[in-house]
């Protein structure tokens, strides 16, 4: 019985007897490749997303297993992209799971020659102190006799790669602290 099964699995026989007469598909599939599964098939969940690169806004599907993103593919349902992704969009998995990605705070002290470690809580406290002090030391109530209520010592660049909600909080906080030199890629 086993011998007969093996014989019927002989690629030449499969090619001669099956529908794949040119030997480019099923006829030449090995047992190993037969058992292969796409990473997407074993995912615990699939999450709807959008490509983070350009502004076309192609739909992405994130395949998650064991709390890790294991594959990112185009979303066929998207009327924008119909499942397609460009080279950058197709490489998104490497963007988010890149071993070179820096995941720890880095700190360079004034005049320092190397990066240093710093824990996130300390960094946040230090940044908060810097912002409060710089703002207070460089506050401007008036310019040329006109009320300005601002600081010209704190500036920011960025936002075009961020979410709308992030831009909203940025502008709201900067405006409340009196910073006006807030810019992003739209002017560059």
């Amino acid at each position, binding site marked *: 019985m086993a011998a007969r099964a093996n014989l019927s699995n002989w690629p030449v026989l499969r090619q001669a007897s099956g529908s794949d007469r040119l030997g480019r598909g099923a006829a030449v599939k090995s047992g190993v490749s037969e058992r292969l599964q796409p990473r997407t098939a074993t995912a615990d969940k699939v999450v709807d997303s959008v490509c983070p690169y350009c502004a076309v806004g192609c739909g992405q599907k994130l395949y998650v297993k064991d709390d890790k993103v294991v594959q990112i593919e185009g979303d066929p349902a998207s009327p924008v992209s119909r499942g397609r992704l460009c080279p*950058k969009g197709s490489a998104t998995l490497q963007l988010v799971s890149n071993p070179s990605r820096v995941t720890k705070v880095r700190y360079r002290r004034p005049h320092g020659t190397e990066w240093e470690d710093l824990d996130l809580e300390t960094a946040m406290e230090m940044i*908060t102190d810097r912002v409060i002090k710089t703002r207070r030391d460089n506050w401007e109530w008036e310019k040329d006799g006109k009320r300005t209520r601002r*600081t010209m010592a704190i500036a920011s660049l960025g936002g075009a790669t961020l979410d709308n909600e992030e831009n909203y909080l940025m502008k709201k906080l900067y405006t409340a602290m009196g910073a006006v030199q807030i810019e992003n890629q739209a002017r560059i």
Partner: protein
Amino acid sequence: MAECHPVGFQWVMEAKARGATLIHVDPRFTRTSAMADIHVPIRAGTDIAFLGALVNHVLLNELDFREYVVAYTNAASIVGEDFKDTEELGGVFSGFDPDTGKYDSSSWQYEGVTEAAAAGQRDPSLPGTPGSDEDLESGAAESGSDSAGSEHEAHEAGRSETAGSGGPTVGSKPPRDETLQHPRCVYQILKRHYARYTPEMVERVCGISQAQFAQVADVLTRNSGPDRTAAFCYAVGWTQHSVGVQNIRTAAILQALLGNMGRPGGGIMALRGHASIQGSTDIPTLYNLLPGYIPMPHAAHHEDLDSFVAADAGSTGYWGNMRDYAVSLLKSYWGDAATADNDFCFDYLPRLTGDHSTYPTVLGQIEGSVKGYFLVGENPAVGSSNGKLQRLGLANLDWLVVRDFNLIESATFWKDAPEIATGELVTEDIGTEVFFLPAAAHTEKSGSFTNTQRMLQWHHKAVEPPGDCRSDLEFYYDLGKRMRASLAGSTDELDRPLLDLTWDYPEHGPTDEPSAEAVLREINGVGPDGAALSSYTELKDDGSTACGCWIYCGVYADETNQAARRKPGQEQSWVAPEWGWAWPANRRILYNRASADPDGKPWSERKAYVWWDAEQGKWTGHDVPDFVVDRPPDYEPPEGATGPDAIGGRDPFVMQTDGKAWLFAPVGLADGPMPTHYEPPESPVSNSMYEQQNNPAREPIERPENPLNPTGSPVFPYVFTSYRLTEHHTAGGMSRSLPYLAELQPEMFCEVSPRLAQQRGLINGGWATIVTERTAIEARVLVTERVRSLRIGDRMLEQVGLPYHWGGNGLTTGDSTNDLVNLTLDPNVHIQGKVGTCDVQPGRRPVGPALIAYVERYRQRAAEAAATPSGTEGSHA
């Protein structure tokens, strides 16, 4: 488009499969050219000469869509007698002051408008008005005497760009001649202005043959009209010029003449390069705007809420309700603290006093006034023009916060900037304290992107961010909480805006991140009962509504995240209205009332989109009508009507005070009412079309680090232009560290023609050094016929193509093209250019201090050549 937005390009290919003719105008032959029916190589920086000649072709042969033009544009409006065209003044318009380099636009006004724009009008000449660089309207009276001064302030304050949604105000309706024969009607003025934009001139200026120009003109005009539409797409390369705004204006004039606006298959599509760059303009991280294109107040003119909204109070169209939008925003920021008695905390807003955009900010860093800097997903050391100025600015800060995925060049400049190698900077001397905070990726946070067609799409969080990585939402929320905690109890007036701020969002997850949906709901706005609003028409100026961005009102209608809708495209109409949500009001094509004729009927069955249903008494169609839904086509607004009530039934451009598309801009632009060809600040030739060499109103940045190559210098005989590659992303922060992408485009290169390679002895695969007066960079050589030698007048001209993605960090490294690009700004929006002149030499550039000496020798040679009359052509004008 096939290079920069390949997936979007599939729709161009669909159109082609249905018979569309595809024309590609680009200095280089690219993947787009390979698919195009016609590739038109053009000299970089001459777009207005080319597009202006198409305008001339349309007018000369009366190929305009006459019924559309008369009804929907300002072609019939009559301009005042004071206006003088470039034809009469050697290439400048009336109102130019050579001492200040700025225009007073009062002479560009319509007849009968005695003053430029009235107080009480949303006029760009009044800082604080959401005026537009896009379109203009009939006359508003301005406080005339100081109109020029305030107008300059307006442009400095970026006011003329605040028209992401509508144009500046003009008041009274101008006289019209619908036969278009009056010598001072816009149509005739346009015709005279563009008469010199002939096919011969296109050949001489752009290097495009007359035969090819004729082919393009024929295809374009044959595919425009009641039954057909043509579209323009640009991957923002049009904007990066000293005439950036006017490049787009020329296309807008052409599309309005051909009747290609507000109709399916028409329009002008800006294909933008960052996932939410549209969103970051709508909900701006920009100095001159508040959310929804409400301007930032200006110190000189906006001392209180009344004066702030006065510019709009009397205007017609939807901007007439500006007070509703502004008060609702203030309520959204300051909640219960904002009351009618305290002007809704208007005074909490910081004021502008001029141009505070990114390049002046960098100069402020170098001069020492800007001390702290946040970089959030942005890498100016590589991505901004004149990289040396950027890095000198970074090196002179007190502190710098960088939020990104990797250690980008803007984070590591203190140890490896090119200026360290040359000795211009020394690590130990740089006092900048640098905090690098790793950012969460889009897979690690929820939120919305607004794509290039104004559509919001929600992405859902899939996993927690690793290590110290946090979303920017969480970072800013946390920073705000810490500042407020630190300042709690302060009685200092300067801390009130922070302490009164509404800053309380639900938190969740292991890091207590704020809820992005709660923020989106605040952006959408809530009514008196606290329920989510569904339309900006519900907003009130009495403090009963709060709305974080009026044009986004409706994205959370019915307490539902409309941006997260994902009904498959296959299961709905071709407009796909149930996928995501487009502002405003989920409209997919703006100004779509123009898709119907003045009587409200589709121009043709083939191009039917939105039309008037007389039986039901409302507008209907495939999209959400961009019009007052029950306003019949024959509606005539009563005398003195304001706001939306003043929109006539035949005025499709509802954000404009006159409801018309502007062929001629009587107000709103810093550099002329009609686009005019000027040479780029650095050009190998003098201007063939006018005495005036450059845009007279351009904004030069005069710094020792920013010298310009002399016009026509034999030392810098070539033109270079920067561009993007499919496989990399702008300044490389999101692409140069990815193995796949680094492998696909492994090295910085320059594209040159075989003729240039022969002239300079360049070898394919070898090295070349590209030199300007700023600096020199090196690149691998790609010799290819994709870069065409152009005949410009009696000489052959070579262009060099330079991708701008590289820097010193990542898996693939190389010199930065932006180190070569000079800083000269467009006067309307303060954007820099991308074109310059250069020399190219075989081999690698010198390293260390030798590089400075090398560039210095070029500067000396250029100065000597400029002093010698022969061999140079033209001069700086």
